[in-house]
């Protein structure tokens, strides 16, 4: 089956059926669930490699592939215990998600861009406020204390542990009923070549 997958990557037709990977009931933050490729990222807002992966890779995937429904992007919160403020950041991210994709993107981009600052003093809220309109910010402040947010974080962590995520970023790419786990980030040009092989 794995050999069949790589034959496919080399341009040969897929000959052997592969098992269907676990489907997520999550909403994609970019693209749709029925997109040919699904990328599921387990990330920690205080992790420098996650910052690079989001700002240099995922952001472009969202624009170039998710916006045309070729790739579905799902973000999972996986705050590591060694990071003091990443759990709080995850709550802001999930609260912003409830407002919409654009709000989520603005908040996440602001948090990652200013990671070095708030990771030192815990001033996450200031960078969330900067990314949103005053009305949206007030809504996020209320939503972040919603019990469902904490439940989502706990569920994402449990899911990551079940899938043997041990460091961040770790992402899973599902395509052609096949799943690949990648530990660490990948530069956008590398991922783009892979996507182009799959979605043409």
């Amino acid at each position, binding site marked *: 089956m794995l050999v069949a997958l*790589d034959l496919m990557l*080399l341009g040969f037709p897929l000959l052997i059926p592969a098992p269907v990977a676990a489907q997520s009931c999550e909403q994609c933050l970019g693209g749709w669930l029925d997109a040919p490729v699904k990328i599921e990222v387990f990330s920690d807002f205080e992790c420098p490699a996650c910052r690079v992966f989001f700002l240099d890779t995922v952001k472009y995937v969202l624009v170039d592939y998710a916006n045309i429904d070729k790739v579905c992007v799902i973000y999972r919160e996986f705050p590591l215990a060694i990071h003091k403020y990443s759990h709080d950041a995850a709550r802001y991210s999930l609260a912003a998600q409830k407002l919409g994709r654009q709000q989520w993107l603005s908040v996440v981009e602001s948090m990652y861009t200013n990671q070095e600052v708030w990771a030192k003093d815990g001033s996450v809220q200031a960078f969330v406020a900067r990314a949103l309109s005053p009305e949206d910010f007030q809504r996020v402040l209320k939503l972040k204390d919603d019990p469902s947010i904490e439940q989502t974080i706990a569920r994402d962590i449990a899911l990551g542990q079940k899938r043997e995520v041990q460091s961040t970023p770790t992402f899973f790419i599902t395509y052609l009923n096949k799943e690949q786990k990648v530990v660490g980030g990948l530069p956008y040009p590398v991922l783009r070549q892979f996507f182009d092989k799959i979605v043409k």
Partner: protein
Amino acid sequence: MANIFRMLHWACRVILAGIFLYSGYVKLQSPLQFAAAITGYKLVPDSLVFPLATYLPWLEIALGVLLLSGWKVRYVALGASALLLGFIAILTTTYLRGIDADCGCFGFGDKISPKTIARDMLILLPAIYLAVEFRLRKPATNPPE
């Protein structure tokens, strides 16, 4: 004496073929993870990472199959030696540059260290033996190629 040479010849071929087949297979299982490892070396431009991650495992599998088949063993072993020397050079320079990269040699989670370099040097030994054994043996005991 001829039997010892013959056994050594077969042992080297089978061990080396097994290593190349396993290494190629592991990389084929997750070309993106292998691509991440290649990226970590900071040696090749991003445009070459994915093609390398896609085709290098096939080269390793081809070497493994050829070693098992016994076709032109001497030349295949020369190719394997060249590839292993290339790996050793890349691992050594990456280690000396102080880059904390994953080896990517036999899957994920194996950081480049003197141990990984020594392991590749050890793998190089049977390849070199197969490439030069014709010089050590009498013509009458040479295995068919």
